[in-house]
Protein backbone atom coordinates (compact mmCIF):
# COMPACT_ATOMS: atom_id res chain seq x y z
CA UNK A 1 0.00 0.00 0.00
CA UNK A 2 2.86 2.38 0.80
CA UNK A 3 4.29 1.67 -2.62
CA UNK A 4 1.04 2.80 -4.19
CA UNK A 5 0.95 6.00 -2.14
CA UNK A 6 4.60 6.67 -2.87
CA UNK A 7 3.86 6.16 -6.52
CA UNK A 8 0.94 8.57 -6.52
CA UNK A 9 2.81 11.30 -4.69
CA UNK A 10 5.85 10.75 -6.89
CA UNK A 11 3.67 11.03 -9.99
CA UNK A 12 2.01 14.18 -8.74
CA UNK A 13 5.37 15.73 -7.96
CA UNK A 14 6.86 14.80 -11.32
CA UNK A 15 3.96 16.27 -13.24
CA UNK A 16 3.52 19.41 -11.19
CA UNK A 17 7.20 20.31 -11.34
CA UNK A 18 7.31 19.40 -15.04
CA UNK A 19 10.27 17.15 -14.32
CA UNK A 20 12.65 17.53 -17.27
CA UNK A 21 13.25 13.85 -17.74
CA UNK A 22 9.54 13.05 -17.52
CA UNK A 23 8.77 15.67 -20.13
CA UNK A 24 11.51 14.36 -22.41
CA UNK A 25 10.31 10.78 -22.09
CA UNK A 26 6.65 11.69 -22.54
CA UNK A 27 7.36 13.78 -25.62
CA UNK A 28 9.35 10.95 -27.10
CA UNK A 29 6.54 8.48 -26.36
CA UNK A 30 4.12 10.78 -28.13
CA UNK A 31 6.50 11.44 -31.00
CA UNK A 32 7.04 7.75 -31.66
CA UNK A 33 3.42 6.71 -31.28
CA UNK A 34 1.89 9.61 -33.17
CA UNK A 35 4.32 9.14 -36.06
CA UNK A 36 3.50 5.45 -36.10
CA UNK A 37 -0.21 6.28 -35.98
CA UNK A 38 -0.07 8.71 -38.90
CA UNK A 39 1.94 6.34 -41.07
CA UNK A 40 -0.17 3.35 -40.13
CA UNK A 41 -3.40 5.24 -40.86
CA UNK A 42 -2.12 6.33 -44.26
CA UNK A 43 -1.58 2.66 -45.03
CA UNK A 44 -4.50 1.05 -43.25
CA UNK A 45 -7.39 3.36 -44.12
CA UNK A 46 -7.10 3.34 -47.91
CA UNK A 47 -6.39 -0.39 -47.71
CA UNK A 48 -9.58 -0.89 -45.73
CA UNK A 49 -11.53 1.22 -48.21
CA UNK A 50 -10.25 -0.70 -51.22
CA UNK A 51 -11.05 -3.98 -49.50
CA UNK A 52 -14.55 -2.73 -48.81
CA UNK A 53 -15.43 -1.69 -52.36
CA UNK A 54 -13.33 -3.76 -54.68
CA UNK A 55 -14.20 -7.25 -55.67
CA UNK A 56 -11.25 -9.43 -56.40
CA UNK A 57 -10.60 -13.08 -56.08
CA UNK A 58 -8.41 -13.07 -52.99
CA UNK A 59 -10.57 -10.59 -51.10
CA UNK A 60 -11.86 -12.93 -48.42
CA UNK A 61 -8.40 -14.38 -47.91
CA UNK A 62 -6.87 -10.94 -47.45
CA UNK A 63 -9.52 -9.98 -44.90
CA UNK A 64 -9.00 -13.23 -43.01
CA UNK A 65 -5.24 -12.67 -42.94
CA UNK A 66 -5.74 -9.09 -41.76
CA UNK A 67 -7.94 -10.21 -38.90
CA UNK A 68 -5.44 -12.91 -37.96
CA UNK A 69 -2.56 -10.42 -37.98
CA UNK A 70 -4.35 -8.46 -35.27
CA UNK A 71 -3.44 -11.27 -32.92
CA UNK A 72 0.27 -11.06 -33.77
CA UNK A 73 2.21 -10.88 -30.50
CA UNK A 74 3.93 -7.48 -30.49
CA UNK A 75 7.13 -8.85 -28.99
CA UNK A 76 7.49 -11.27 -31.90
CA UNK A 77 7.11 -8.37 -34.31
CA UNK A 78 9.88 -6.64 -32.36
CA UNK A 79 12.13 -9.64 -32.69
CA UNK A 80 11.59 -9.91 -36.44
CA UNK A 81 12.15 -6.20 -37.00
CA UNK A 82 15.30 -6.42 -34.87
CA UNK A 83 16.68 -9.22 -37.01
CA UNK A 84 15.83 -7.33 -40.19
CA UNK A 85 17.36 -4.03 -39.06
CA UNK A 86 20.47 -5.41 -37.36
CA UNK A 87 23.75 -4.62 -39.10
CA UNK A 88 24.10 -8.28 -39.86
CA UNK A 89 20.59 -8.34 -41.29
CA UNK A 90 19.17 -7.44 -44.71
CA UNK A 91 18.41 -3.80 -43.91
CA UNK A 92 21.42 -3.20 -41.72
CA UNK A 93 22.94 -0.62 -44.05
CA UNK A 94 20.36 1.93 -42.97
CA UNK A 95 21.67 1.81 -39.41
CA UNK A 96 18.14 2.03 -38.02
CA UNK A 97 18.46 -0.35 -35.10
CA UNK A 98 18.23 1.31 -31.69
CA UNK A 99 16.73 4.49 -33.09
CA UNK A 100 13.24 5.93 -32.68
CA UNK A 101 12.68 5.15 -36.36
CA UNK A 102 13.02 1.44 -35.62
CA UNK A 103 10.44 1.81 -32.89
CA UNK A 104 8.10 3.58 -35.27
CA UNK A 105 8.53 0.82 -37.83
CA UNK A 106 7.73 -1.87 -35.27
CA UNK A 107 4.66 -0.02 -34.02
CA UNK A 108 3.38 0.60 -37.54
CA UNK A 109 3.56 -3.14 -38.26
CA UNK A 110 1.71 -3.87 -35.06
CA UNK A 111 -1.16 -1.44 -35.48
CA UNK A 112 -1.85 -1.48 -39.23
CA UNK A 113 -3.84 -4.75 -39.05
CA UNK A 114 -5.81 -3.41 -36.09
CA UNK A 115 -6.73 -0.12 -37.72
CA UNK A 116 -7.45 -1.76 -41.07
CA UNK A 117 -9.72 -4.41 -39.57
CA UNK A 118 -11.81 -1.98 -37.53
CA UNK A 119 -11.96 0.53 -40.36
CA UNK A 120 -12.89 -2.14 -42.88
CA UNK A 121 -15.86 -3.22 -40.80
CA UNK A 122 -17.25 0.31 -40.66
CA UNK A 123 -16.52 0.98 -44.31
CA UNK A 124 -18.10 -2.28 -45.35
CA UNK A 125 -21.27 -1.43 -43.43
CA UNK A 126 -21.36 2.01 -44.97
CA UNK A 127 -20.78 0.62 -48.44
CA UNK A 128 -23.73 -1.70 -48.04
CA UNK A 129 -25.83 1.37 -47.24
CA UNK A 130 -24.51 3.47 -50.12
CA UNK A 131 -24.09 0.77 -52.71
CA UNK A 132 -27.27 1.16 -54.74
CA UNK A 133 -27.12 4.93 -54.76
CA UNK A 134 -23.49 5.27 -55.77
CA UNK A 135 -23.65 2.59 -58.43
CA UNK A 136 -26.69 4.29 -59.86
CA UNK A 137 -24.70 7.53 -59.97
CA UNK A 138 -21.91 5.86 -61.92
CA UNK A 139 -19.12 6.72 -59.51
CA UNK A 140 -15.52 5.77 -60.26
CA UNK A 141 -13.49 3.62 -57.87
CA UNK A 142 -11.64 6.69 -56.63
CA UNK A 143 -14.86 8.55 -55.98
CA UNK A 144 -16.22 5.52 -54.12
CA UNK A 145 -13.18 5.39 -51.86
CA UNK A 146 -13.16 9.14 -51.25
CA UNK A 147 -16.85 9.26 -50.41
CA UNK A 148 -16.64 6.33 -48.00
CA UNK A 149 -13.52 7.60 -46.27
CA UNK A 150 -15.04 11.04 -45.77
CA UNK A 151 -18.47 9.94 -44.64
CA UNK A 152 -17.09 7.33 -42.25
CA UNK A 153 -14.49 9.70 -40.88
CA UNK A 154 -15.59 9.51 -37.27
CA UNK A 155 -15.56 5.73 -37.27
CA UNK A 156 -12.15 5.84 -38.93
CA UNK A 157 -10.87 8.18 -36.27
CA UNK A 158 -12.07 5.71 -33.67
CA UNK A 159 -10.17 2.98 -35.48
CA UNK A 160 -7.04 5.12 -35.47
CA UNK A 161 -7.40 5.90 -31.80
CA UNK A 162 -7.67 2.18 -31.10
CA UNK A 163 -4.33 1.87 -32.83
CA UNK A 164 -2.95 4.69 -30.71
CA UNK A 165 -4.03 2.96 -27.54
CA UNK A 166 -2.36 -0.27 -28.62
CA UNK A 167 0.86 1.50 -29.54
CA UNK A 168 1.32 3.85 -26.59
CA UNK A 169 1.14 0.99 -24.10
CA UNK A 170 3.38 -1.37 -26.03
CA UNK A 171 6.68 -2.26 -24.44
CA UNK A 172 8.05 -5.58 -25.75
CA UNK A 173 8.73 -4.72 -29.37
CA UNK A 174 10.06 -1.22 -28.80
CA UNK A 175 12.30 -2.42 -25.99
CA UNK A 176 13.90 -4.89 -28.37
CA UNK A 177 14.31 -2.64 -31.40
CA UNK A 178 14.92 0.59 -29.47
CA UNK A 179 17.25 -0.69 -26.78
CA UNK A 180 15.77 1.67 -24.17
CA UNK A 181 18.74 4.02 -24.54
CA UNK A 182 18.69 6.92 -22.12
CA UNK A 183 18.02 10.24 -23.91
CA UNK A 184 17.61 8.45 -27.21
CA UNK A 185 15.03 5.67 -27.30
CA UNK A 186 13.63 5.60 -23.80
CA UNK A 187 9.86 6.07 -23.64
CA UNK A 188 7.27 5.80 -20.88
CA UNK A 189 6.72 2.06 -21.13
CA UNK A 190 10.38 1.10 -21.39
CA UNK A 191 11.28 3.52 -18.58
CA UNK A 192 8.71 1.83 -16.37
CA UNK A 193 10.24 -1.56 -17.15
CA UNK A 194 13.69 -0.20 -16.36
CA UNK A 195 12.82 1.45 -13.06
CA UNK A 196 10.91 -1.63 -11.93
CA UNK A 197 13.97 -3.72 -12.71
CA UNK A 198 16.05 -1.39 -10.55
CA UNK A 199 13.66 -1.78 -7.67
CA UNK A 200 12.63 1.86 -7.97
CA UNK A 201 8.92 1.16 -7.62
CA UNK A 202 7.83 4.64 -6.64
CA UNK A 203 9.32 6.19 -9.76
CA UNK A 204 8.00 3.37 -11.92
CA UNK A 205 4.53 3.88 -10.51
CA UNK A 206 4.84 7.58 -11.05
CA UNK A 207 5.61 7.03 -14.71
CA UNK A 208 2.83 4.47 -14.84
CA UNK A 209 0.26 6.94 -13.59
CA UNK A 210 1.38 9.47 -16.17
CA UNK A 211 0.94 6.85 -18.87
CA UNK A 212 -2.50 5.94 -17.55
CA UNK A 213 -3.43 9.61 -17.48
CA UNK A 214 -2.37 10.00 -21.09
CA UNK A 215 -4.32 6.91 -22.17
CA UNK A 216 -7.45 8.01 -20.31
CA UNK A 217 -7.28 11.41 -21.95
CA UNK A 218 -7.16 9.77 -25.36
CA UNK A 219 -10.01 7.43 -24.49
CA UNK A 220 -12.16 10.33 -23.32
CA UNK A 221 -11.46 12.04 -26.62
CA UNK A 222 -12.58 8.89 -28.45
CA UNK A 223 -15.78 8.70 -26.43
CA UNK A 224 -16.54 12.33 -26.97
CA UNK A 225 -16.21 11.90 -30.71
CA UNK A 226 -18.29 8.74 -30.56
CA UNK A 227 -21.11 10.53 -28.74
CA UNK A 228 -21.30 13.10 -31.47
CA UNK A 229 -21.68 10.24 -33.86
CA UNK A 230 -24.82 8.85 -32.22
CA UNK A 231 -26.39 12.25 -31.65
CA UNK A 232 -26.14 13.75 -35.08
CA UNK A 233 -26.01 10.35 -36.72
CA UNK A 234 -23.20 11.34 -39.01
Amino acid sequence: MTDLWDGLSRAFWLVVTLDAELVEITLRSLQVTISALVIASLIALPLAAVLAVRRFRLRRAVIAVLNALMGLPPVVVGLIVYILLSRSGPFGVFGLLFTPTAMIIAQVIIIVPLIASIAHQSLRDLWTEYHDLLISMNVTQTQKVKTLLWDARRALLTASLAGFGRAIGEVGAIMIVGGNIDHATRVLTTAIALETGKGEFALALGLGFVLIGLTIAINIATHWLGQTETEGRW
Partner: protein
Amino acid sequence: MTQLFPLKVTGAESRRRGKLLVGPVDLELGPTGTTIVIGPNGSGKTTLLSLLHGTSRLNAGQVTWACSTEDARRHQSFVFQRPVMLRRSVVDNIAYPLGLRGHDTKTARAQATEWAIRVGLGDMLTRPATVLSGGEQQKLALARALISEPKLVFLDEPCAALDGRAMREIETILTEVKAAGTRIILSTHDLGQARRLADEVLFLKGGLIHEQGLAPTFFDQPQTSEAQAFLKGDIVE
Protein backbone atom coordinates in the same frame (compact mmCIF):
# COMPACT_ATOMS: atom_id res chain seq x y z
CA MET B 1 -27.41 17.22 -77.92
CA THR B 2 -27.54 13.66 -76.69
CA GLN B 3 -30.72 11.90 -77.64
CA LEU B 4 -31.53 9.00 -75.35
CA PHE B 5 -34.73 7.93 -77.06
CA PRO B 6 -36.16 5.89 -78.59
CA LEU B 7 -35.23 3.21 -76.09
CA LYS B 8 -35.57 -0.25 -77.59
CA VAL B 9 -35.77 -3.36 -75.46
CA THR B 10 -35.76 -6.80 -77.08
CA GLY B 11 -36.12 -10.14 -75.34
CA ALA B 12 -34.84 -8.78 -72.05
CA GLU B 13 -34.73 -11.25 -69.18
CA SER B 14 -33.57 -11.06 -65.60
CA ARG B 15 -33.01 -14.09 -63.45
CA ARG B 16 -31.95 -14.68 -59.92
CA ARG B 17 -30.58 -18.09 -59.00
CA GLY B 18 -31.95 -19.44 -62.22
CA LYS B 19 -35.48 -18.26 -61.50
CA LEU B 20 -36.98 -15.90 -64.09
CA LEU B 21 -37.97 -12.62 -62.44
CA VAL B 22 -38.74 -10.47 -65.44
CA GLY B 23 -39.05 -11.23 -69.11
CA PRO B 24 -38.92 -11.83 -71.84
CA VAL B 25 -39.76 -8.16 -72.38
CA ASP B 26 -40.07 -6.29 -75.63
CA LEU B 27 -40.55 -2.59 -75.40
CA GLU B 28 -40.09 0.71 -77.17
CA LEU B 29 -40.19 4.01 -75.31
CA GLY B 30 -40.46 7.41 -76.97
CA PRO B 31 -38.86 10.70 -76.00
CA THR B 32 -41.64 12.52 -74.18
CA GLY B 33 -44.08 12.22 -71.37
CA THR B 34 -44.47 10.19 -68.25
CA THR B 35 -44.55 6.41 -68.45
CA ILE B 36 -46.10 4.69 -65.47
CA VAL B 37 -45.20 1.07 -64.84
CA ILE B 38 -48.08 -0.34 -62.87
CA GLY B 39 -48.77 -3.76 -61.46
CA PRO B 40 -49.37 -5.67 -58.28
CA ASN B 41 -46.64 -6.17 -55.69
CA GLY B 42 -44.06 -8.70 -56.75
CA SER B 43 -44.73 -8.24 -60.43
CA GLY B 44 -41.15 -7.21 -61.08
CA LYS B 45 -41.48 -3.43 -61.36
CA THR B 46 -38.25 -2.70 -59.50
CA THR B 47 -36.37 -5.28 -61.53
CA LEU B 48 -37.68 -3.87 -64.79
CA LEU B 49 -36.65 -0.34 -63.89
CA SER B 50 -33.19 -1.53 -62.83
CA LEU B 51 -32.82 -3.36 -66.12
CA LEU B 52 -33.62 -0.25 -68.08
CA HIS B 53 -31.36 1.89 -65.89
CA GLY B 54 -28.54 -0.60 -66.19
CA THR B 55 -27.94 -1.45 -62.54
CA SER B 56 -29.35 -4.94 -62.93
CA ARG B 57 -27.67 -7.39 -65.23
CA LEU B 58 -29.44 -8.69 -68.30
CA ASN B 59 -29.43 -12.45 -68.46
CA ALA B 60 -30.75 -12.33 -72.01
CA GLY B 61 -31.80 -9.80 -74.62
CA GLN B 62 -30.80 -6.22 -75.24
CA VAL B 63 -31.46 -2.72 -74.00
CA THR B 64 -30.52 -0.22 -76.68
CA TRP B 65 -30.55 3.55 -76.36
CA ALA B 66 -30.45 5.97 -79.26
CA CYS B 67 -27.03 7.07 -78.02
CA SER B 68 -24.28 5.05 -76.36
CA THR B 69 -25.03 3.36 -73.06
CA GLU B 70 -22.36 5.47 -71.38
CA ASP B 71 -23.93 8.70 -72.54
CA ALA B 72 -27.33 7.44 -71.51
CA ARG B 73 -26.12 6.63 -68.01
CA ARG B 74 -24.74 10.10 -67.59
CA HIS B 75 -28.06 11.71 -68.38
CA GLN B 76 -30.35 9.73 -66.15
CA SER B 77 -31.09 9.47 -62.42
CA PHE B 78 -32.83 6.96 -60.21
CA VAL B 79 -34.96 7.55 -57.13
CA PHE B 80 -35.25 4.46 -54.93
CA GLN B 81 -38.27 3.28 -53.05
CA ARG B 82 -36.43 3.75 -49.80
CA PRO B 83 -34.22 6.82 -50.02
CA VAL B 84 -30.51 6.40 -49.40
CA MET B 85 -29.14 9.30 -47.41
CA LEU B 86 -25.45 10.09 -47.37
CA ARG B 87 -24.18 10.86 -43.90
CA ARG B 88 -24.00 14.51 -44.61
CA SER B 89 -26.10 17.62 -44.37
CA VAL B 90 -29.16 18.12 -46.52
CA VAL B 91 -27.44 20.61 -48.79
CA ASP B 92 -24.33 18.42 -49.17
CA ASN B 93 -26.51 15.45 -50.09
CA ILE B 94 -28.24 17.35 -52.83
CA ALA B 95 -24.96 18.81 -54.06
CA TYR B 96 -23.24 15.42 -54.20
CA PRO B 97 -23.91 14.59 -57.89
CA LEU B 98 -22.47 17.96 -58.90
CA GLY B 99 -19.34 17.20 -56.91
CA LEU B 100 -19.01 13.95 -58.82
CA ARG B 101 -19.14 15.88 -62.05
CA GLY B 102 -16.31 18.16 -61.00
CA HIS B 103 -18.16 21.25 -59.85
CA ASP B 104 -16.49 23.15 -57.04
CA THR B 105 -18.09 23.02 -53.63
CA LYS B 106 -19.29 26.62 -53.59
CA THR B 107 -21.19 26.47 -56.87
CA ALA B 108 -22.56 23.03 -56.06
CA ARG B 109 -23.82 24.18 -52.68
CA ALA B 110 -25.44 27.25 -54.19
CA GLN B 111 -27.39 25.21 -56.71
CA ALA B 112 -28.26 22.63 -54.06
CA THR B 113 -29.66 25.38 -51.89
CA GLU B 114 -31.95 26.49 -54.70
CA TRP B 115 -33.21 22.96 -55.19
CA ALA B 116 -33.65 22.45 -51.46
CA ILE B 117 -35.86 25.52 -51.28
CA ARG B 118 -37.75 24.33 -54.32
CA VAL B 119 -38.64 21.01 -52.72
CA GLY B 120 -39.49 22.64 -49.42
CA LEU B 121 -36.37 21.80 -47.43
CA GLY B 122 -35.02 25.33 -47.36
CA ASP B 123 -35.07 25.67 -43.59
CA MET B 124 -33.08 22.54 -42.85
CA LEU B 125 -30.08 22.95 -45.10
CA THR B 126 -27.43 22.14 -42.51
CA ARG B 127 -29.33 19.38 -40.73
CA PRO B 128 -27.93 15.87 -41.03
CA ALA B 129 -29.97 14.20 -43.74
CA THR B 130 -30.40 11.07 -41.65
CA VAL B 131 -32.66 12.77 -39.13
CA LEU B 132 -35.24 13.85 -41.70
CA SER B 133 -38.66 12.20 -41.92
CA GLY B 134 -39.44 9.71 -44.67
CA GLY B 135 -41.23 12.29 -46.77
CA GLU B 136 -38.49 14.85 -46.38
CA GLN B 137 -35.85 12.30 -47.31
CA GLN B 138 -37.69 11.33 -50.44
CA LYS B 139 -37.99 14.97 -51.46
CA LEU B 140 -34.26 15.30 -50.87
CA ALA B 141 -33.66 12.23 -53.01
CA LEU B 142 -35.75 13.76 -55.75
CA ALA B 143 -33.87 17.05 -55.60
CA ARG B 144 -30.61 15.14 -55.66
CA ALA B 145 -31.77 13.17 -58.69
CA LEU B 146 -32.79 16.32 -60.54
CA ILE B 147 -29.93 18.66 -59.75
CA SER B 148 -27.77 17.21 -62.50
CA GLU B 149 -30.51 18.05 -65.00
CA PRO B 150 -31.00 14.55 -66.31
CA LYS B 151 -32.95 13.87 -69.44
CA LEU B 152 -34.60 10.87 -67.81
CA VAL B 153 -35.60 10.13 -64.23
CA PHE B 154 -36.57 6.69 -62.95
CA LEU B 155 -38.67 6.58 -59.80
CA ASP B 156 -39.30 3.24 -58.14
CA GLU B 157 -42.50 3.46 -56.08
CA PRO B 158 -41.32 6.78 -54.65
CA CYS B 159 -44.41 7.40 -52.53
CA ALA B 160 -44.95 3.87 -51.20
CA ALA B 161 -44.02 4.80 -47.65
CA LEU B 162 -45.31 8.37 -47.63
CA ASP B 163 -48.40 10.07 -46.31
CA GLY B 164 -50.84 11.94 -48.53
CA ARG B 165 -49.30 15.33 -48.03
CA ALA B 166 -45.80 14.22 -48.88
CA MET B 167 -47.13 12.38 -51.91
CA ARG B 168 -48.86 15.46 -53.15
CA GLU B 169 -45.68 17.53 -52.76
CA ILE B 170 -43.70 14.99 -54.74
CA GLU B 171 -46.28 14.76 -57.48
CA THR B 172 -46.33 18.54 -57.78
CA ILE B 173 -42.59 18.62 -58.34
CA LEU B 174 -42.85 15.80 -60.86
CA THR B 175 -45.46 17.71 -62.81
CA GLU B 176 -43.22 20.78 -62.94
CA VAL B 177 -40.28 18.67 -63.97
CA LYS B 178 -42.25 17.02 -66.73
CA ALA B 179 -43.35 20.38 -67.97
CA ALA B 180 -39.73 21.37 -68.26
CA GLY B 181 -39.18 18.46 -70.64
CA THR B 182 -37.69 15.72 -68.44
CA ARG B 183 -38.71 12.17 -69.31
CA ILE B 184 -40.15 10.27 -66.37
CA ILE B 185 -40.51 6.52 -65.89
CA LEU B 186 -42.23 5.80 -62.60
CA SER B 187 -43.43 2.55 -61.07
CA THR B 188 -46.32 2.32 -58.62
CA HIS B 189 -49.04 0.00 -57.43
CA ASP B 190 -51.25 2.95 -56.57
CA LEU B 191 -53.95 3.29 -59.22
CA GLY B 192 -54.85 6.78 -58.18
CA GLN B 193 -51.31 8.00 -58.66
CA ALA B 194 -51.14 6.28 -62.02
CA ARG B 195 -54.29 7.99 -63.17
CA ARG B 196 -52.98 11.37 -62.03
CA LEU B 197 -49.57 11.18 -63.62
CA ALA B 198 -49.58 8.82 -66.57
CA ASP B 199 -49.33 9.68 -70.21
CA GLU B 200 -48.49 6.08 -71.03
CA VAL B 201 -48.99 2.92 -69.01
CA LEU B 202 -47.11 -0.37 -68.89
CA PHE B 203 -49.06 -3.03 -67.03
CA LEU B 204 -46.72 -5.57 -65.51
CA LYS B 205 -47.77 -8.88 -64.03
CA GLY B 206 -45.61 -11.88 -63.20
CA GLY B 207 -42.61 -10.29 -64.84
CA LEU B 208 -44.32 -9.81 -68.18
CA ILE B 209 -45.83 -6.75 -69.82
CA HIS B 210 -49.41 -7.67 -70.38
CA GLU B 211 -50.53 -4.37 -71.74
CA GLN B 212 -48.93 -1.18 -72.96
CA GLY B 213 -50.76 1.87 -74.13
CA LEU B 214 -51.77 5.49 -73.75
CA ALA B 215 -53.26 6.33 -70.40
CA PRO B 216 -56.83 7.13 -71.40
CA THR B 217 -57.04 3.90 -73.39
CA PHE B 218 -55.68 1.80 -70.58
CA PHE B 219 -57.89 3.17 -67.87
CA ASP B 220 -61.10 3.32 -69.84
CA GLN B 221 -60.74 0.34 -72.12
CA PRO B 222 -58.26 -2.15 -70.77
CA GLN B 223 -57.61 -4.90 -73.29
CA THR B 224 -56.47 -7.85 -71.20
CA SER B 225 -58.45 -9.65 -68.53
CA GLU B 226 -55.61 -9.26 -66.05
CA ALA B 227 -55.63 -5.51 -66.54
CA GLN B 228 -59.36 -5.43 -66.21
CA ALA B 229 -59.24 -7.40 -62.98
CA PHE B 230 -56.53 -5.14 -61.63
CA LEU B 231 -58.43 -1.99 -62.49
CA LYS B 232 -61.59 -3.41 -60.97
CA GLY B 233 -59.72 -3.81 -57.69
CA ASP B 234 -59.35 -7.59 -57.60
CA ILE B 235 -56.27 -9.11 -56.07
CA VAL B 236 -53.98 -9.96 -58.92
CA GLU B 237 -50.89 -12.08 -58.45
